C-alpha cells in the first residue's frame, strides 16, 4: 500500500499516460524530466515565485508544491497544452505585442494565472489584475506591460461577448 515508487495514470494536456514515478518527485519535475514538457519552469521550489504554475483538474496550482503521485487519476494542463489548444492565444498575442515578456521564464506561469483571472468573465481593474498576479515574480518587465496586456485582453473578450 505504501511505496517509494508508484504507478500512476493521468492525463497531461489531453494525453493519457501510465507511468512509474518516485513518490518524492514534484509535479513540475515530473513534467520537465519525465515528459520533457519544459515549458513549466522552476524558480524557487518553495511556492513563492509562481514560475511553475500549471493547471491540475482545472485549477491553477504550484507545480513545485504538488507531488506527481498526487495527480494519479487527475488531469494536468501545462503551457504547451494551453498553447496548442488556443485557449490563451489572445493573451499570448497581447504579451508579444506589448513586450509583456522579456526573458520569458515567468511567462508560462504568468499566462496560466492571467487566464485564471480572465476565465471569470468580468473586466478586472488594474489593481485587481496586479493582485491576482501578485504571486508571480517577474524580474524583467516591472509588471506594467503585463498589466496592460491582461487589461487589453479582458476588454477585448468582454467586447467580443456583446
Amino acid at each position, binding site marked *: *500500500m505504501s511505496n517509494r515508487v508508484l504507478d500512476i495514470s493521468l492525463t497531461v494536456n489531453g494525453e493519457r499516460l501510465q507511468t512509474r514515478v518516485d513518490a518524492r518527485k514534484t509535479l513540475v519535475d515530473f513534467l520537465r524530466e519525465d515528459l520533457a514538457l519544459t515549458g513549466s519552469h522552476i524558480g524557487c*521550489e518553495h*511556492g513563492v515565485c509562481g514560475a511553475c504554475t500549471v493547471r491540475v483538474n482545472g485549477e491553477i*496550482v504550484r507545480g513545485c*508544491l504538488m507531488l506527481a503521485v498526487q495527480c494519479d487519476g487527475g488531469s494536468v494542463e501545462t503551457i504547451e497544452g494551453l498553447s496548442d489548444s488556443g485557449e490563451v492565444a489572445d493573451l499570448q498575442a497581447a504579451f508579444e505585442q506589448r513586450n509583456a515578456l522579456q526573458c520569458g521564464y515567468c511567462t508560462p506561469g504568468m499566462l496560466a*494565472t492571467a487566464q485564471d483571472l480572465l476565465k471569470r468573465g468580468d473586466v478586472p481593474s488594474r489593481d485587481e489584475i496586479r493582485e491576482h498576479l501578485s*504571486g508571480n515574480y517577474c524580474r524583467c518587465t516591472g509588471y506594467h506591460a503585463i498589466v496592460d496586456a491582461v487589461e487589453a485582453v479582458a476588454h477585448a473578450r468582454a467586447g467580443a461577448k456583446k
Partner: protein
Amino acid sequence: MKPAPFAYAKVRTLKEAVALLAKHKDDARLLAGGQSLIATLNMRLSAPELLIDINGIKGLDGIAKKGKFVEIGALARHAQVEHSDIVARHAPLIALAMPHIGHPAIRNRGTFGGSIAFADPAAELPACLLALGGEIDIAGPKGKRKVKADAFFKGLFETALRPQEMVTAIRVPAADKNTRVGFAELARRHGDYAIVGLAASARAGGKGLVDVRLAFFGVGATPVRAKNAEAALASSNIDTAVAALDLAPHDDVQATARVKKHLAGVLLRRVAEQLMEPRP
C-alpha cells in the same frame, strides 16, 4: 532542492489515516494541501519516512451551516472557503481573511484544516478561530474529541493535537445581526505572512460592544488574545485599549518587537472602527 526519499500512501478513509499514523508515529506526516509541507520537504527541513495523502477522504471538505454554527471540513480548500456564500453570509470574519492567504494558486490547494493544524504564528486562520471562539474536531487512535480554540494553540507550531491525531472539522458560531467583525493585517507584499495582524469579533450590546475577542497574529508563538485591550474596547475606549495592549512580541527578520507592538496598536484602531460598524 529535492526532497529526501519517502514512501507515499493514499488513504480513502479517516480510519485508514489514523491507523497509519498510529503505526508509523513520528515517521509519518499527513499530506493535505501540501503548501507548507512540500516546501519544507523541498528544503530538506523535514525528512519523514512516509507521507499519508488524505486528500481522497470523502466527506471532510464540506462547508455547511449547522444550526447556530458554521462547520468547515478540514479538507475544504482555501479557494472553496473564499468563494463560499455560506462563509460570506454566516462567517464574515473568515471571509475577510481569506484573500490575504497566499495567492490564488496556493489557495486552490491549501486547506482550512491544514492551516489550523500547522498553526503558523503569522497565519490568518488560527487567529480568526481564536477571535470567533471556534472549536476544532479531532480524530485519533483513541477516538474523536473536540477542543476549543482558546485551548488549541499551545506554542510555536504546537497545538493540542496529540501524536497520531488529525483535525477533521472546524466549527465557528454563525454570525447574526448583532455580530461585529473586523480584520486587518500588515504585510510588506500582498500575500506575504503578516508582520502583524488582527482578527476581531464582538457583539453589539447596548451602547457599546460585548464579547470582544481580539486575536493578534504575528506577535508571538501563537495567535494571542489581547484580553486587557478587549475589556477596554468593550467600554468603547479606543485609546485605553491601545494603551492596554498586552502583547510581548519578539524581534524577527521582518520587524523588531517595538515596531510590532506599535503596529498592533495601529491595527487595533483600524479594526475597532470596523467593529463599531453595523452589519451591512
